[in-house]
């Protein structure tokens, strides 16, 4: 019983919709937040699925490709503790809990009570066409805080959370495929941060 509406619907993910308002609202409703900033992007990595999954499953690898993440440590409780650099030498922190883990297929996490910034992340892994590696789809959402933290956050994400996530995914692909993160720096002690 496909309605005409459903039949004419695009096969693209919600994050590619012209009107992003629905997506933010739906996400906020599901998570019980006031508002949500949502970002989704897919990248194809020329490596087998289990390898890509395994790298992402070790949260302590995140600082090697997430520019602003200074460290992620895993506590005995199983919670991961994130320390994220913010402008002016400041940091924001939170604890996250793994909410889903299907080896080779899916990883999802959510910040727990008391986070400086409430956030959730979901990473899906699918085989690309035969011989072409793995499609990684990242969906990240956070509850945009107001006040001082909101301003700090805007700066942290260079006013564009999508931009930061997009660059982090590029670095992730570079690191997986080449073993290093591309940089134009010519000195160890200048310019942008290396890995």
């Amino acid at each position, binding site marked *: 019983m496909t309605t005409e509406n459903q039949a004419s619907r695009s096969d693209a993910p919600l994050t590619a919709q012209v009107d992003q308002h629905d997506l933010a609202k739906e996400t906020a409703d599901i998570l019980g937040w006031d508002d949500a900033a949502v970002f989704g992007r897919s990248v*194809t990595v*020329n490596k087998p699925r289990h390898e890509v999954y395994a790298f992402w499953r070790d949260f302590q690898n995140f600082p090697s490709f997430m*520019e602003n993440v200074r460290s992620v440590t895993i506590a005995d409780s199983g919670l991961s503790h994130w320390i994220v650099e913010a402008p002016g030498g400041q940091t924001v922190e939170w604890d996250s809990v793994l909410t889903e883990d299907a080896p080779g297929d899916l990883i999802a996490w959510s910040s727990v009570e008391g986070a400086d910034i409430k956030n959730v992340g979901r990473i899906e892994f699918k085989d690309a066409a035969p011989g*072409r*590696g793995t499609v990684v789809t990242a969906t990240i959402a956070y509850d945009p805080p107001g006040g001082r933290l909101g301003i700090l956050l805007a700066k942290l994400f260079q006013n564009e959370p999508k*931009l930061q996530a*997009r*660059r*982090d995914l*590029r*670095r992730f*692909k*570079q690191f997986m*495929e*080449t*073993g*290093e*993160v*591309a*940089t*134009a*720096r*010519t*000195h*160890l002690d200048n310019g*942008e941060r*290396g*890995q």
Partner: protein
Amino acid sequence: MRALTWHGKHDVRMETVPDPEIINPRDAVIRITSTAICGSDLHIYDSFIPTMKPGDILGHEFMGEVVDVGRSSTLQKGQRVVVPFVIACGSCFHCGQQQFSACDNSNPADKADISEIAYGYPASGLFGYSHMTGGYAGGQAEYVRVPFSDIGPIVVPDGLEDEKVLFLSDILPTGWMAAENCEITPGDTVAVWGCGPVGLFAIQSAMIMGAHRVIAIDHYPRRLELARAMGAEVINFQDVKVREALMEMTGGIGPDACIDAVGMESHGFTLDNNVDKLKTATRLGTDRPHVFREVLMACRKGGRVSIPGVYGGVGDKIPIGAMMQKGLQIRTGQTHVQRYLQPLLEMIGEGKIDTTFLISHRMALEDAPAGYKMFKEEQNETTKVVLKPDWAAGAAA
């Protein structure tokens, strides 16, 4: 070290800057023994390339001696290498297809946004060619940091002097790929617009690939002379109407394949080119695609169009109808240099390809600003400038 830096339109300077270091495991540092000025550098010199920053080190045609290596480099100190101007990782999907200039991983993540917006996809990294292609320091310098040094650089035998192999870095493979993209079959006539280094090497390559005739187009007598010396027939576009001339010279058929080895800064006083000049001067347009238009009009029905000439932005009044109605095939791109290094090095070794005929000036790196001015303003006499970092200022040959 000393390096040639860009500061604005027609303003390049020799400056002292810190020596480069190994940053990533696959890096190498090269001491440069020879480096050249390219027609592509002129687009930067003329301020046609966006995302340049004052102080950027130019140069993407260079070779030298390995002086330092990262732990994952496969090079050894002391080896002589020629370095491709295209930076490629060797392990992404595109590199696997030998489409090295489409490498996914060589442009740093924070530099890739610009081309992703301008072209829909991030460009790959190039040496010394603006921040859009990575912001990598170039090789018109005493030293250069070479990323992915296990993939790009080719080790050359000591018996082959610099001038025989230097152009493997760019213009020789560029001319070769331009001709290869013409899919030349016996009996074909190939027309080549532009007799600069790229056009001349394209002519040489087309001859080797068995073209029946090559017709070369330019307005500099000395450059046309070099084309003629390689066996091409020539057209001086100042004297004759190019399309009419080509039609007459091919018995009313038109060339089977056409190569645009000019790119975005076409010369000439045709109406369309003058309008484009006005538009680019007032920033209403980005490129002057006069040659591209002419190529689409002149090529025979079902023919092949190959575009090594560099374009950067958007072009107006492209005869898209001619392209479609005639069923033209179009091939273009930054050269997949790494693909051609080994076979071309062999042909140089066997004496099948000569590269030295091109060089009109050899001078000290220290005099590079004068070299740019000459290559820009005296194109007739200046076919190619090679810079030597270890020569004293003022030395020339």
